[in-house]
């Protein structure tokens, strides 16, 4: 056996060892639960899964994608639980009739209209739905027109299937899939939108309350002369209008392990995680 031939065998061995040959058996591990969907619900699911797995043999994989992806995946059998930060739309209900989608609300979130901190500092503290609509339709192009500095508005929109966009547009326009010709920039996840608004000094956008921070400020909504502050207090009292349920969705009756996980999230420990993640536990709210 020559040097080269040995080299060859070495190469093959290196590759097979290098590839780690992961154990192929499923023995000893529990059911694998795939959770896919809304980036708003993601932190809750991900933290809860970590906690849940400490006392369970199930393995829970959590993946992002957006509410639309969550609903599609669970209906298409590609996931066990879909996460959605909005209700199932009529269109989806019709399309996925056969899947018998079941909804489990696990928490509550509010979507705020947010602006870059520079704009907030410059005095834009409140906007009417009409103003927001004007901005998104491209009729209002300068912050000057809504009481801000003389600066063009960077209108940040979200991808169409995102739950945040659905509820926001529903409130502003009464149409969840409103077309918005004023848009300058489209983002995907909450993280991305937050980043883009923070990087800009003249942006407006929509964000779940949990993503609001010093760089990204929420403005009050001025609805029919009444100012509604974007705080958890107003949400809890039922005054804040852009509120949505954070949902887990399954197709038909779930298996017991999956049910156990959903139960865990809805239970006291899970609800604590919901609160830590910046949302309102489902039990505290009576609409």
């Amino acid at each position: 056996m020559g040097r080269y031939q040995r080299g060859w065998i070495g190469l093959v061995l290196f590759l097979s060892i290098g590839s780690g040959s992961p154990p192929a058996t499923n023995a000893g591990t529990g059911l694998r639960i795939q959770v896919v969907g809304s980036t708003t619900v993601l932190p809750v699911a991900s933290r809860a899964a970590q906690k849940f797995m400490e006392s369970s043999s199930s393995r829970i994989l959590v993946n992002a994608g957006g509410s639309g992806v969550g609903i599609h995946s669970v209906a298409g059998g590609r996931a066990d639980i879909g996460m959605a930060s909005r209700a199932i739309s009529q269109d989806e209900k019709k399309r996925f009739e056969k899947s018998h989608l079941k909804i489990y609300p696990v928490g509550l979130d509010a979507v705020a209209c947010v602006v870059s901190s520079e704009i907030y500092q410059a005095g834009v503290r409140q906007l009417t739905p009409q103003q927001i609509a004007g901005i998104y339709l491209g009729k209002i192009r300068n912050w000057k027109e809504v009481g801000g500095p003389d600066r063009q508005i960077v209108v940040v929109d979200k991808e169409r299937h995102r739950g945040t966009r659905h509820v926001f547009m529903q409130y502003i326009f009464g149409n969840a899939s409103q077309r918005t010709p004023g848009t300058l920039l489209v983002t995907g996840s909450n993280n991305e939108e937050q980043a883009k608004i923070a990087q800009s000094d003249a942006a407006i956008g929509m964000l779940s309350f949990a993503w609001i921070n010093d760089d990204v400020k929420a403005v009050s909504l001025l609805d029919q002369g009444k100012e509604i502050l974007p705080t958890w207090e107003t949400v809890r009292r039922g005054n804040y209008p852009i509120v949505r349920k954070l949902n887990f969705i399954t197709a038909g009756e779930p298996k017991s392990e999956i049910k156990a996980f959903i139960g865990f999230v809805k239970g006291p420990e899970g609800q604590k995680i919901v609160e830590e993640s910046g949302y309102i536990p489902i039990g505290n709210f009576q609409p």
Partner: protein
Amino acid sequence: MKAGFGRGLFGTHHSEPVGWVFAAMNFIFFLCAVGLGLFLVVESVPILRSEGWGFLLGENWWVGETFGALPMICGSLIVTGLAIFLVLPVALSGALFTSEYLPSSFRRRVKGIMELLAGVPGIIYGLLGVSFLTVGVKDVLNLLDGNTLFTAGFLLAIMILPTVLTLSEDALHSVPSEFREAAESLGLTKLQIALWVVLPQSLPGIVGAVLLGIGRAMGETIAVMLVIGSLDRVPGFNLFVSGQTIPSKLGREAVEALGSGLHWSALMGLGLTLFIMVAVLTFFGNLFVRRSSQ
């Protein structure tokens, strides 16, 4: 003349099992390549049937209502064109200097650096893009926002620079030295030789290099996706607005539509469009490169 001895596809070796194993491997490769194209075609049939030419020419992409690919096609063309426009003078200068002026040890080093650069993953460029380029473009050009077609084109220019440079340099370097010596004996300066003798000789190779660079730029997903702004709108003649390219659109929406429905078919239609554009470019690119190396 008689047919010879078992010519044709499998030569004289029908009886070698090893040969059949190799043939099978080759067949797998063949299937992969052809299957890819075939899949794209088959999967995009529904959208082409429902939208017809409107698919390529439509200006709106609203899932569930209408699918028009024009914004993405325009975006891809603009971004790629911009990248080439930016990269060409730089890459050619670099290639000319490396090939005609640098001593061979330095030349090898420069080529090595280019090869390393060419291997930098797209995600790294994406990271550099979101952290520096978008902010930089916005501040320097005093724009509303830095996520623009220009940003994407600029980033792509940096990405394809090593590829274009090193391939053009190969083309320049492959011009036989007799040509240079002949020109030298006529009293031409080095620059004159480079511009009048070497450059025209290696033109096909350079064109090929550029076409291959375009191909790479057109297909880049991640880096573009992070800095382009993802707005599906036909951008007109303004480079400093957000836009969308075909790959960035695919990257953003593939998960949502995964595997079924008209939306998926529309995405596959986009993919097919991209595939055809890149395949044509590559075909001619290789044709030119080969012609110059002969």
